């Protein structure tokens, strides 16, 4: 047996027990999930877990769009599940006309927004997505949480990829710097915050993009399992504190060339 217990001293929250495998699990501290009381979450009253692994996503017979997600796009067949990739991967294509865009947001209804990061709430939130782009030029992309109804035309601005004026938090790529993933958040009506280039987009490599809200005042990001040195305060005016949000995937082309984002999984946990 190679299973062992791992105690993680979670910043501001005390010790957390995780069961890990000596061979298969990330090293101690090298995962946002080492902070998460996942064993306790087997009791649904402790919190709620959104986990989409894209293994058998329900889709409409005609449009082939996901039936549990809101969709915004302009062409059929912009959402596929490539056979050449293991573990369940969704691919969103922008289509190949300049400014074509495709967005999907969890929740069939545009009113679904089950997650909120509220300053000093004692309700931690954990997020991680495994993702990659297949292109590295003139594109906009976003993966993270955004307010309900964000999956709509123009969520990413034409030619720049700048995020529309919505509550959101996550990771994005801008047209002007398409080889860089940024961490970003915004409260509706406030200026957008961006920590530029938290990891490179090379058009091929998978990256794990995560963040963790401790339930008090601080959000920490995990890039490929590594804790980023920069922290973010949820009581900042620019932070979308108290705003209800839902997982979203977005891609947009800035030229007449197809752009593609692939997502292996999205997992979001909130403590009740």
């Amino acid at each position, binding site marked *: 047996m190679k299973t062992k217990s791992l105690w993680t001293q979670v910043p501001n*929250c*005390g010790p*957390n*027990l995780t069961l890990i495998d000596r061979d298969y699990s990330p090293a101690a501290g090298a995962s946002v999930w080492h902070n998460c*009381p996942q*064993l*306790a979450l*087997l*009791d*649904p*009253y*402790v*919190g*709620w*877990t*959104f986990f*989409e692994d894209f293994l058998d996503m*329900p889709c*409409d017979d*005609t*449009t082939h*769009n*996901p*039936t*549990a*997600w809101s969709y915004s796009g302009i062409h059929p067949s912009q959402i596929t599940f490539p056979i050449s990739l293991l573990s369940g991967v969704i691919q969103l294509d922008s289509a190949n006309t300049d400014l074509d865009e495709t967005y999907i947001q*969890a*929740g*069939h*209804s545009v*009113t*679904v*927004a*089950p*997650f*909120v990061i509220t300053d000093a709430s*004692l309700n931690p939130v954990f997020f991680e997505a495994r993702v990659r782009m297949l292109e590295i030029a003139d594109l906009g992309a976003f993966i993270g949480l955004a307010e*309900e109804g964000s999956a709509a035309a123009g969520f990413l601005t034409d030619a720049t990829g700048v995020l529309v004026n919505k509550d959101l938090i996550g990771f994005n790529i801008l047209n002007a710097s398409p080889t860089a993933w940024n961490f970003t958040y915004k409260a509706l009506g406030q200026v957008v915050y961006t920590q530029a280039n938290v990891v490179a987009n090379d058009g091929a490599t998978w990256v794990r993009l995560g963040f963790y809200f401790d339930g008090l005042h601080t959000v920490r990001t995990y890039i490929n399992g590594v804790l980023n040195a920069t922290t973010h305060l949820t009581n900042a005016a620019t932070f979308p504190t108290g705003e*209800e949000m839902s997982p979203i995937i977005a891609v947009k082309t800035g030229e007449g060339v197809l752009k593609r984002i692939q997502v292996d999984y999205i997992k979001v946990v*909130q*403590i*009740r």
Partner: protein
Amino acid sequence: MVFADRDYSPYTGASVWHNCPQIALLDPTVGWIFYEDFLALPCDVTLHDPTGWTMQTDIAPGGGPMTFPVSFLGGVASVTTGGAADNDETYFQAGHSKTVAPFWMVDASARALFFECRVMAAQHLSNSIFVGLAEEGACAANFLSNDDGVIADKDFIGFNILDATPAAWNYTHRLSGQVVVTQVGVAVNADDWHRFGFYFDGLHTVRLYIDGALNATTYLTSAATFPAGQEMSPMIAVKTGAVAGNAKIVKVDYFKVVQIR
């Protein structure tokens, strides 16, 4: 063994899940788990109704008998009767087909069963509600009787509200053809959230957990009125009573049902 979080988990004994071998259930041969948190429920792209649940409603197609309100965190299904007419009703039962009924409690079977849902009635006037397990095909017109909300002659176990006592949540079970058993007023319906659970120990006894607290009354699965050995599926039901006036709504945060194989 249960792993609990010192800050976030219910106190020791204050959860039906403290009885459940949830770690062992990571092996699917141990049992099966139904867990619907309504975070991202697959719905028909045209009518917007859940595709994984059977539906019965008086609402016109596309009228939204189940919606997902933005103002509720954690994924909440809002099931409504829709119209204001007397005896309007909406029912959902897990399983696209009316033959789906994956759970049962068999006396002395050694197959324990665990149930919990978090639910809120949005009104407490002239409405009837049921949340629990019911036999396959129970999701049909008049599962709740006109004007009184009495549950149809089906196999079922769960929690209900009757028209005559809309401020009281009751525990109830029935074996089809037998008289209904009811424990009146296990919780007050003040249009607030409640956690309703029960636990069958695999031998002869069902115990209730109301808002995490063990209820003193127990029920024998060997009783003639208990739906022992009857296959059932999770169900949500709401009906407007004799006093018409507005739509009646029940909100469900989650359903979790576990059965040991």
